[in-house]
């Protein structure tokens, strides 16, 4: 009984976002993780800035490419800086993040959708002003 450590074999211990797991809290590993994150984020940023001004790719595809690069960089930040992983000790953090992403998606896509429909279906503003006179 004395050599049994709860939370290590049978049960997973939760960890706070931004914390590494207690067993691997070595300084060098932490710094390595931040360095990998910094390298990947720098690379993605440079590619983003390059893509935005280039004429090498088809013009209308540039916003799509920029969005993909931005989402990839946000993922890099989450994994290497905020230490959000898919591990069993991170379930609560990932669930909260998933809910946040859902709300962000609903808010942005919903707003754009509704406003585009309003723009399409409503009379132009100057005509409304004229009718009110």
């Amino acid at each position, binding site marked *: *009984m004395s050599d*049994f450590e*709860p*939370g290590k074999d*049978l*049960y*997973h*211990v*939760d*960890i*706070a*976002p*931004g*914390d590494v797991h207690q067993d691997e*809290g070595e*300084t060098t590993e*932490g*710094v390595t993780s*931040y*360095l990998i*994150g*910094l390298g990947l*984020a*720098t690379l993605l*940023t440079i590619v*983003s*800035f390059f*893509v*935005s*001004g280039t004429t090498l790719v088809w013009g209308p595809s*540039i*916003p799509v490419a*920029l*969005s993909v*690069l*931005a989402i990839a*960089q*946000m993922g890099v*930040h*989450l994994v290497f*800086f*905020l230490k959000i992983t898919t591990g069993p000790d991170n379930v*609560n*953090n990932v669930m*909260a*993040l998933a*809910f*946040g992403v859902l*709300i*962000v998606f609903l*808010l*942005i896509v*919903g*707003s*754009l959708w509704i*406003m585009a429909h309003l723009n399409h279906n409503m009379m132009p503003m100057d005509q409304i002003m004229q009718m009110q006179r």
Partner: protein
Amino acid sequence: MTTFEAATGRDDPNRVARTASGLASKRILVGYGFWIFLLSDIIMFSAFFATYAVLVGQTAGGPGGQELFHLRTVGLETACLLVSSFTCGLANIGAQTYNRIWFYSAMAATFILGAAFLGLELREFADMIAHGAGPTRSAFLSAFFTLVGCHGLHVTAGLLWLLTMMAQVFAKGYRADILRRVLCFCLFWHTLDIIWVGLFTVVYLMGAGQ
């Protein structure tokens, strides 16, 4: 007592803090609660992003993003904030390992880079307002100043918090509650960088390349 309870050590107060069956430690609770706050902050920013995206074309005959945005400045700002996010992570490691020099130098570097970011942003704002492109010029510029200015306010608050954390570590040492605050500060700073990624992509890169 059943075997399950004996195995999880539910009646042992020292072990309860570490098992999934009992309460989590205070560090986990604080970190998780702050994570939820940060997500709500991101949701607030997404509302500003939606506003900006709706109003981006409404320039009312005034200048658009293509005339106003200088990608060289934005690149410098991005570099400052990205490297400051990295040094902030190093400061967290310095705090966890009780390394004073590491913690103070990394926090100082974070402050200098954050202040440089803020200075560049304020200069950009002042430049735009001086050229008649202030927030009152058009709906597009109102949305721009709201979105980017809100991020700038967050960075300002973060810088004040950073100085507070350095003073608290100096005055009170590496107490458990101080270390929790350092962790929360680092989460806050990293989140500001995530928001900046969305910001420089949607506002500056897409705006300048129209």
